[in-house]
């Protein structure tokens, strides 16, 4: 009966939506929805950070996580950020509701969207944004952005790559301000047991051939020296592609294949990476490695966490992973075996041209503005202020981002936008200070990281992870190299799911994973051709068409 109950509870949520929908006036029927944004805009001060002559009230909603802490007697409604909004911008921020768990927030948000009783600024996910836009409930922010975004905000959102901003565009119109993040943080890194390399006298991985050689040696030459044949060459989890822990995204990138990502083909159109011919040799090589026993025979049932345990237990010494891997899971391995040492290397290529690590759209939140809201530019001003306090002329990290006592002040600000280079900047600043010994230029977060790395250098194993993420050499040494050579390749599609994706993607993804897993485990490569054919037939062609239409629409 369990799932009947589950169905019923799903329906229960549905009916709450219906009830709230009929209790409120239908949003499309209210003529005030299309009030005069021009009049409102002209009343507002023109500069990105200029103050409203008399304070204006702006409503929003938010969810906070349980770890949020405040200075002194501050509260969520009255803290350094809300005061700054009022003092510096003349904006009085009011929360219509605050949810304390993610589930709670999603539910409240869905009811709110269904009822049309929206606050002025609506923080939403990509899918929710699409729903709001389709329902015609939100303001077009193109003009607001053009007029009010500060130069630094524009740099964050457009910079080298306009993808983050474009992901908030529908038919060329900007419908929300994105909370930008660092996409390069998601680039794949090749993790290798440096102590094993040294023990077996192997070179550092420079080419794909080196990777095979190391994988073979790690399998057959007993790198842990326990006399048992119990180590694997290359780590792999059941999701196969992607990043995380032992996802093979970086491996495929070495073959110039991009699993699950959208790339430009020779004619400039967008194509789905998993079905392109570059996948074939990559899969064949995996099949060969599987046959030779270089892969875990049971990878098919192990997810990232489970394979992470193998790394911690010293069973795997070579895998593709993410920049945060020293924190989780590798620190645990270091705790168990202090002699364990991992090195971060750039992903390698199978031929002469460099491997480009694929990265996805890192925007997790969008700030949309209710249609007819009196001050649609308010959100842009608050985002501007956030960026200025963090990285601009008003920079004040210790009082607005992370206090000296370690309170995460940035969590108090409801509207964020992060530098696309934030973590990389931490690395660069910290490494510089480590060389010169001058810590005067470090902000709160950077200083804390610096201290932890110093602590590690003084012999404390517990902070090894900070040194391997931010120190030298570390994850960010590699990412810095990627960035300098302009290698990271962002998926060319980063909008909300298209119509056919919503309908067919689950089926297609299942087929993809099933086929790839079977090929690696020995099924003839002809299965790949059949998969490509089926993929196209079962909705892939429609998806490709929609994605290309989308690409044109944001131009």
């Amino acid at each position: 009966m369990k799932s009947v109950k589950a169905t019923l509870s799903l329906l229960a949520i549905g009916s709450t939506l219906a009830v709230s929908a009929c209790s409120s006036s239908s949003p499309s029927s209210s003529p005030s929805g299309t009030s005069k944004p021009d009049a409102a805009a002209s009343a507002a001060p023109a500069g990105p950070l200029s103050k409203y002559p008399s304070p204006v009230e702006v409503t929003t909603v938010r969810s906070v996580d349980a770890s949020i802490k405040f200075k002194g007697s501050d509260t969520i409604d009255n803290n350094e950020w809300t005061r700054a909004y009022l003092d510096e911008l003349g904006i009085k921020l009011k929360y219509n509701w605050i949810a304390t768990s993610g589930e709670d927030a999603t539910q409240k948000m869905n009811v709110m969207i269904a009822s049309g009783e929206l606050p002025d600024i609506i923080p939403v996910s990509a899918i929710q944004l699409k729903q709001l836009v389709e329902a015609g409930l939100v303001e077009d922010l193109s003009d607001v952005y053009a007029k009010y975004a500060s130069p630094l905000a524009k740099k964050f959102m457009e910079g080298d790559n306009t993808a983050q901003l474009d992901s908030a565009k529908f038919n060329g119109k900007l419908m929300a301000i994105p909370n930008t993040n660092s996409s390069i943080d998601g680039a794949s890194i090749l993790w290798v047991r440096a102590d094993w390399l040294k023990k077996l006298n192997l070179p550092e991985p420079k080419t794909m051939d080196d990777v095979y050689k190391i994988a073979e040696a790690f399998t057959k030459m007993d790198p842990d020296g326990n006399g048992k044949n119990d180590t694997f060459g290359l780590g792999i989890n059941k999701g196969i592609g992607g990043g995380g822990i032992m996802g093979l995204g970086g491996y495929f990138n070495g073959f110039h294949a991009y699993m699950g990502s959208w790339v430009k083909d020779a004619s400039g159109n967008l194509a789905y990476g998993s079905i392109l011919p570059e996948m074939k040799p990559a899969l064949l090589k995996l099949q060969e490695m599987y046959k030779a026993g270089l892969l875990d025979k049971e990878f098919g049932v192990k997810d990232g966490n489970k394979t992470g345990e193998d790394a911690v237990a010293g069973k795997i010494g070579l895998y593709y992973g993410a920049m945060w891997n020293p924190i989780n899971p590798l620190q645990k391995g270091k705790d168990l075996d202090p002699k364990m040492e991992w090195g971060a290397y750039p992903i390698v290529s199978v031929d002469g041209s460099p491997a480009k690590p694929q990265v996805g759209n890192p925007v997790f939140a969008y700030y949309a503005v209710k249609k007819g809201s009196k001050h649609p530019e308010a959100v842009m001003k608050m985002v501007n202020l956030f960026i200025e306090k963090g990285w601009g002329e008003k920079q004040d990290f210790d009082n607005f981002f992370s206090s000296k006592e370690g309170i995460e002040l940035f969590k108090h600000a409801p509207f964020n936008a992060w530098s696309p280079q934030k973590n990389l900047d931490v690395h660069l600043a910290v490494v510089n200070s480590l060389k010169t010994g001058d810590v005067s230029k470090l902000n709160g977060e950077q200083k804390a990281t610096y201290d932890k790395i110093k602590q590690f250098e003084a012999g404390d194993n517990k902070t090894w992870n900070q040194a391997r993420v931010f120190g030298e050499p570390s994850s960010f040494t590699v990412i810095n190299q990627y960035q300098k050579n302009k290698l990271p390749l962002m998926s060319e599609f980063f909008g909300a799911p298209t119509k056919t994706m919503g309908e067919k993607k689950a089926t297609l993804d299942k087929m993809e994973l099933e086929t790839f897993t079977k090929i690696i485990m020995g099924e003839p490569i002809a299965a790949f051709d059949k998969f490509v054919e089926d993929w196209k037939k079962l909705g892939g062609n429609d998806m490709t068409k929609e994605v290309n239409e989308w690409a044109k629409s944001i131009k």
Partner: protein
Amino acid sequence: MPIKKWRHELPLHLMLLPALVILIVFSYWPMIGIVIAFQKFIPAKGFFGSNWVGFQNFLYVYNLPDTFQIVYNTIFIAVMKIAAGLLVPITIALLLNEMMKERIKRTVQTLIYLPHFLSWVILGGILIDVLSLKGIINQFVSLLGIEPIYFLGSNHWFPYVLVATDTWKDFGFGTIVYLAALTGINQSLYEAAVIDGANRWKQTLHITLPGIMPVVILMTTLSLGNVLNAGFDQVFNLYSPQVYESGDIIDTFVYRIGLIDAQYSVATAVGLFKSVVSLLLISGSYLLAYRFAGYRIF
């Protein structure tokens, strides 16, 4: 019905009222949500704004390439689970009942009941280790000179692994139910049987089994409603792309469509279809139980 009797029983009927209210509020009222199975549901537009599409969602599911396989898997796994879930607890209950030492009986009863309290998330992690190629089961198997078996990665074995582990987890619970039923059998029947010269086996066959038959039928009837419920928690934590072919069931399918792809309408359509079939099955089995064993719930 005479009014006097009705008045006499009125307080009893009133006691049903809170339950009825809860049932209406939490089980019947939400059923209105089923309409989204017939709509192209957009949450922002609600029930009244979304477009009607008739049976399009059902047709869509029917046309998916995997649907037949998924329904087959679900029924195959569920039927085997129901069969094993009846036979094993009854056998264990009978064996325990024959046991003379009360203390051992109690201990065994408690021990086999324990796995019932573990969640599949935890058991999933443990079972992946236990059933791995180097796990304890395969070490034992290789002692017998058999090649290690990849239980969780083989389409041949996976459904049976599901049935075996599910039975292992829950047979303790069933056993307790049947033990309780066994205590309800009139002891004088056994005494009479002994005087007639019946041995242990004959006693079991002619007294014990008929004695617990109503409970067996009740349990079967209840579990038949679960035929399309092959157990989401379990399958979700144990399956992998390699065994989609034999392990993907309706619930895991609905999960991927409804929660990952946010296709509420299609997920509801599948859920509704499942509920209707379950209703037919449980009504049918109730009818059969009444016809052949004179068993009634009310």
